[in-house]
């Protein structure tokens, strides 16, 4: 399998007048093409820093982030749709930013929106959509520029539990059917188990890799996985590692 992202002994230090904070220390991880990788860690352990490093928004203090020329799409906790733009215009936003707002590119984006049930909402403003639909629109916006790797920063944590399960299922299916590589960051253990092929467990700040597990489920759909007997076994293992 081809590697799309690799962290090599990556350390990240933040400087402020109060002193120096080490957010990430000597961290190694790899993401292969087509994989769904989850990173779990206690809250405040520098998870978001990792994604910013992967996306190239931050440069590591020490070590290397190797991306092999991949393009990244970022999905945040909240949908961050612009309320003054219609769903359609929101989806076109990354095209405008990249300066590739051509008819062909727009049609590709619209086809995606249509495929995943957003067609009837295209002319609506975000405020008239449900939380789940908004998050789906945010995903389509991320996919509009056809990125190689999706970086998901706790994309479901702002939703209520019911919506969260179904949106997670939803987003998972879309990412799979578009054959995207994904790197999910979360503090929700069961969410990580239900979607990931590979799970990295991080320590509290400074973040280091404590363990790395390959998930061995026969099922792929998140909701089905949750019913599997092995699910609770994995939960216990990860829970212990997180709280070690």
């Amino acid at each position: 399998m081809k590697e799309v992202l690799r962290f090599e002994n990556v350390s990240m230090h933040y400087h402020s007048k109060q002193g120096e904070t080490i957010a990430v220390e000597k961290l190694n991880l790899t993401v292969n093409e087509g994989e769904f990788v989850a990173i779990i860690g206690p809250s405040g352990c520098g998870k978001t820093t990792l994604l910013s490093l992967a996306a190239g928004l931050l440069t590591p203090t020490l070590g290397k982030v190797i991306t092999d020329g991949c393009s990244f799409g970022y999905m945040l906790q909240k949908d961050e749709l612009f309320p003054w733009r219609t769903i359609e215009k929101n989806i076109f936003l990354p095209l405008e930013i990249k300066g590739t707002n051509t008819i062909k590119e727009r049609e590709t984006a619209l086809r995606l929106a249509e495929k995943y049930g957003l067609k009837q909402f295209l002319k609506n403003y975000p405020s008239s959509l449900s939380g789940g639909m908004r998050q789906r629109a945010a995903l389509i916006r991320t996919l509009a520029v056809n990125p190689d790797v999706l970086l998901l920063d706790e994309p479901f944590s702002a939703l209520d539990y019911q919506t969260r399960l179904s949106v997670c299922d939803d987003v998972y299916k879309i990412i799979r059917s578009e054959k995207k590589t994904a790197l999910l960051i979360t503090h929700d253990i069961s969410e990580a188990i239900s979607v990931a092929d590979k799970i990295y467990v991080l320590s509290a700040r400074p973040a280091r890799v404590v363990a790395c597990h390959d998930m061995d489920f026969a099922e792929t759909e998140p909701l089905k996985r949750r019913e599997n007997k092995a699910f609770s076994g994995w939960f216990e293992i990860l829970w212990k590692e997180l709280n070690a």
Partner: protein
Amino acid sequence: MKNENVHSKEHLLYLKGVRRKSALVNVARISVLAVLLLFWELSASLEWVNPFITSSPSRIAKTIYSLYADGSLFYHVGTTLWETLAGFFIAVAVGYSVALLLWWSESFRRIAEPYLVVLNALPKIALGPLIIIWFGTGSKAIVFMTVLIGLIVAILNMLNGFMATDENKILLLKSMGASKWQILSKLVIPSSLPDFISMLKINVGMAWIGSIMGEYIVSKAGIGYLIVYGGQVFKLDLVMSAVFILCVLAAVMYALVALLEKIVIKNQK
């Protein structure tokens, strides 16, 4: 929402209640005005008070009509209106641009901060004599005074609006590879539209303060001039009339901004 024409009896009753309440408020508002005017008129005409000092609605109407008849009404109103609008637009435009500049550069912002704080606290009228010497006794001085009063408020309000831009949305745009210019045009300017409108509203008030104050200090025409002149020659009818005209003009200008708000901000949440 689906069947807008089909409502339950209870809902119709509720709607009726809402309508009645707002009608009642309107009636009460007009009644308050009518009673006040009537009381004012009566107490003046029955000489409970000295109408020479308090004036009265009918005397105000007569004064305004005589101003209109000798052609000076529009001259004075026009002078003040021109000064106010010119000062308003210059203050808003310059204030907006300076705020943009301050948003753009953090070091510029830090350097400018103490100056803005001091200029904001300074009572601009203290500069009156300087302004007369620099700009003469015409409209130019008054427009300058108006700009001075509105400018700092415009800068501070707009800068607050720009700085309040959602950090996560900025992060999102950066992850798409947006330049600072794109962040400004796609996010900061549209998301600060409500702040822009509220800045306009504040500056309507500031512009009138500026132009009237300017005319108090130095003028040969305008509504502020009428007020000062009326006070000096003890023509209180004239003072009251000028204040009345001012009320109407300020209300109209505010209503225009409120209308703009309705048109522009349909979809901001």
